[in-house]
């Protein structure tokens, strides 16, 4: 667990923002907890612990239950994600067209073990199960931009761009 990293990177959690999300957007509705957490993750690019504690108090759900939710769903992260996020599709169509190799390649280049975030928080590599664009597999998405029929050369160029930033 890169916990030490999480602590030194802990951003200031703005409780007025949390109030806006929890009460204004979702009316403090417990059933909307997953969506509140998604909104918080959009805000901070991960789920800061104080924010989860705050939700727990605000809507009266034990922290353990929130922690279960945060660790159950694949889209949630308890550690900060990088400024650039690359998603490589590993759905069946993309897999058959070699997306596994792409993941390995990018992970090796960025010194990541199969996925995750670089220590400088610049880059995160994740896999997803089918983005619905199977016709142009393998599909890679970098910072919400699609790269259809991705290949190693193209990914190298993208990584170089990030490296020189």
């Amino acid at each position, binding site marked *: 667990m890169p916990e030490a990293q999480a602590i030194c990177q802990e951003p200031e959690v703005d409780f007025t923002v949390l109030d806006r999300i929890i009460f204004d957007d979702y009316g403090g509705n417990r059933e909307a907890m997953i969506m509140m957490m998604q909104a918080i993750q959009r805000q901070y690019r991960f789920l800061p612990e104080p924010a989860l504690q705050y939700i727990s108090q605000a809507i009266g759900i*034990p*922290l*353990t239950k*929130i*922690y*279960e939710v945060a660790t*159950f769903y694949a889209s949630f992260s308890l550690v900060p994600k990088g400024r650039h996020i690359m998603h490589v599709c590993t759905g069946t169509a993309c897999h058959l067209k070699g997306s596994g190799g792409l993941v390995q390649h990018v992970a090796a280049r960025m010194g990541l073990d199969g996925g995750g975030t670089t220590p400088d928080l610049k880059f995160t590599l994740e896999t997803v199960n089918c983005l619905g664009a199977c016709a142009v597999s393998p599909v890679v998405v970098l910072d919400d931009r699609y790269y259809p029929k991705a290949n190693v050369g193209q990914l190298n160029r993208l990584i170089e761009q990030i490296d020189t930033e």
Partner: protein
Amino acid sequence: MKVILDGKEVDAEAGRTILEVARANGVDIPTLCHVPALEPAAMCRLCTVELVEGRRSRLVTACNFPLRGEVEIKTDTPRLRKGRKVLIELLHTRCPDSVVLKELAERYGADLARFPDDNKDCVVCGLCVRVCERIGANVLALSGRGVEIRVNTSFGRTARHCIGCGACAQICPVEKIRIRDEEAERVVIVCGREAARIPLRPCSSCGKPFGPVIDLSLVMERAGEAQVPAFNLLVCPACSRRSHARRLAERHFEQYDIEPAPGGGAE
């Protein structure tokens, strides 16, 4: 209502689970993740039995299948024995030391050497998490999913709001939870990791730490009308016993003019 249980016709109250009816009739269905006090979670699947309705037969878990009509239940068929055998072999890899699993292995002829030991914490029956939630302390959680699932505390941190009741340690079928009183703290250790730490309350009489310092309102609330005598919150059981004994002695032996033994608590 009548059901056929392993070939014998028995009485069953509608709404009862297969497990309840079987136990009432002396039929032993193995379970790991079930205690009668908690709502069944059917996670271990060890209690799987065959249910025959008309011409259809299917597998259901006995611990939570409510009987609603006249059916036939088979609790010990070759298919079930075979499944249970594999299940025990698989679970054993996680907990090679478990006594309960060894006994079950014996009963179902499981070959414990078939899969290599993984030593992965526990069998994830979820009982401790459920009992902790039921008590109202909410210290333990089932975090992660898939193979990563495990018993955990929030953020894997040592919890401070545990009430040290020990229910989790009591309920664990594979004995993976230990409770240890150190100096002035009680420590809960789940699968070898420290899960909670609660300061212990010093006895106002002898000064030795005894019960956990907790928010008693929770206990009071659970205990309902019957209030916990304030005295018991301050004095350790040993001193409490001693002081009781002395008061008794004073009352009974005074007439014989015998000196009570020296020592004991302050008045």
